[in-house]
């Protein structure tokens, strides 16, 4: 009986109110919509990538309330009442974030495909642990895969950014 | 995946052979098998195979073709099916041999099983284990059916 009801009833929609890169968004989503598709297709922010589609590679990393999630395997409805940060929202008033500057200065990317996810994950790391050891950094970043750089430059970039971000006055 | 099972049945070869060709009886020993039908006696049969591993359920409408038949001794068959709902196919090559004299028959099954498509994502090991369980249950059921029917 429930199957017949589902077929004939209107598609269920969920009102979604959330902050995207600091600005309030109000939109309706269906339960089965994925966060990755919402951000890329409906909101046009294509910095976040679909890569492995099974939460393993980290190319789809977004920050929700400052914590990294796999947008490919997160229902869009889960960001109700939360704040979402994409790579497009990292620079402020045209000024690059120290992580972005460090990745450029230290060669932390080649093709750039993993980079948005890599930088967002690194931001979450440094927000939680402003002075990580290399072991702590590697453990946190373990879920972000890069096929180009061999990781050494990524580690250097993050450590350099951490150093720059540490003096008093840096925002957390 | 290759499977081999031998069972000793306390019944003469003629009885076992007759049992194999009694489609309803034989197929009903196979766990998860339903709606067995004869399309062409001795040549072609159909059945639906339903199997479950945890929350993963498959339903294969299956066609069984008899390739070779040697009276009271040997059968070679091929079965194939597809579950379009979950995009998976199954193929089985089956070799059945009967050996033995008097009141004891050794029934041997050699099966080559291929599972293709999404179901393979569950992992070779899990599928092999499930197929092993099914074959085990099947051969035990055949033995019980033949021996109990005294």
């Amino acid at each position: 009986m429930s199957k017949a009801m589902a077929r004939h009833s209107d598609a269920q929609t969920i009102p979604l109110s959330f902050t995207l890169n600091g600005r309030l968004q109000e939109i309706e989503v269906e339960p089965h919509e994925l966060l990755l598709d919402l951000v890329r297709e409906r909101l046009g922010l294509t910095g976040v990538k679909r890569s492995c589609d099974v939460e393993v590679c980290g190319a789809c990393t977004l920050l929700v309330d400052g914590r990294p999630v796999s947008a490919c395997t997160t229902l869009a409805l889960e960001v109700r009442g939360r704040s979402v940060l994409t790579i497009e929202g990292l620079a402020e008033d045209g000024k690059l974030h120290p992580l972005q500057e460090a990745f450029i200065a230290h060669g932390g990317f080649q093709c750039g495909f993993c980079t948005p996810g890599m930088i967002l994950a690194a931001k979450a790391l440094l927000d939680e642990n402003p002075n990580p050891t290399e072991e702590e950094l590697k453990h946190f970043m373990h879920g972000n895969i890069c096929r180009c750089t061999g990781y050494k430059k990524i580690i250097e970039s993050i450590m350099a950014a951490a150093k720059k971000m540490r003096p008093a006055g840096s925002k957390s | 995946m290759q499977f081999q099972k031998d069972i000793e049945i306390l019944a003469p070869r003629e009885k076992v052979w007759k049992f194999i060709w009694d489609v309803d009886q034989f197929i009903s020993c196979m766990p998860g098998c339903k709606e067995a039908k004869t399309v062409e006696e001795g040549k072609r049969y159909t059945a639906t195979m339903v199997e479950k591993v945890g929350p993963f359920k498959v339903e294969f409408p299956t066609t069984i073709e008899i390739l070779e038949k040697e009276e009271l001794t040997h059968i070679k068959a091929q079965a194939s099916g597809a579950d379009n709902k979950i995009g998976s196919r199954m193929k089985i090559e089956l070799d059945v041999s009967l050996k033995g004299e008097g009141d004891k028959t050794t029934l041997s099954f050699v099966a080559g099983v291929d599972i293709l498509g999404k179901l393979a994502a569950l992992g070779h090991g899990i599928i092999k284990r499930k197929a092993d369980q099914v074959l085990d249950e099947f051969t035990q059921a055949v033995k019980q059916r033949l021996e109990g029917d005294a």
Partner: protein
Amino acid sequence: MLRRFRLEEPESVKEASEVLGRFGESAKIYAGGTELLLTMKEGLVHYEHLVNIKKVGLNQIKRDNGVIKIGALCTHHQLESSPELQKSLPAFVQMEHNVANVRVRQAGTIGGNLCFAEPHADPGTLLIALGAKLVAAKGSSQREITAEDFFVDAYETSLEPDELLTDIQVPEANRGVAYLKFGYLERPSVGVAVALGAGDGKQYIGDIKIAVGCAGPAPKRMADAEALLRGKSREEATRNLPKAGEIAGRAAQALSDLHGSQEYKEHIVGVLLKRAFHSALSQC
């Protein structure tokens, strides 16, 4: 893309149980979704209703009369960052810290992990060695299932279809605990947990619990291997370790697959058992 489904959002265990009973096989519990959504994306399963149980409030960590109670909806991240757990169950915290990756730990729940019963997982193995009890609720009644009885087969637990796992209870005890895992792939290939007590300045082994996971279809308690070590002098136990490893390896019902051959996994079980035993002993 996922196929369309309806979302149900019960606000109590009783309501969740009722919803599950009402929709039967067409509904599935949804918490972190880290396993469920993957299988739905693959097209291996489909549910017309997902029952979001994150509003039911089962995400607390409590210490109650010598028992640590962990809500089923605690995320791995919550568990790895809990000061309470770091104090009372540091080996459990370390295991949680190493589950999957930071994004899966952020969304995934311990309850979801246990109930999905993916063979290549960590928490179940350690919980068996810790003698944990799992509490399952249906309507307004509940029952306790020991961790070692919880896992039936690959992707199969002893939960009934309309039951909810509500919390995991771990008895506090003065013991050395170690969980070691091994693997190159995304999920672990072999996991071994040892919890033991030692007496007389570590000169003899008191009670010991061993569990092996990931190698076979479900994590298992290794009672026969334990028997070779329990109550033995430290020397004798150490001498028996290789034999215990062999027994545990075979009992693990290792399957040959991409993670390794059956023989290889059995061998690794022996290696990890030896290391975990010594690690646990050093903590006593």
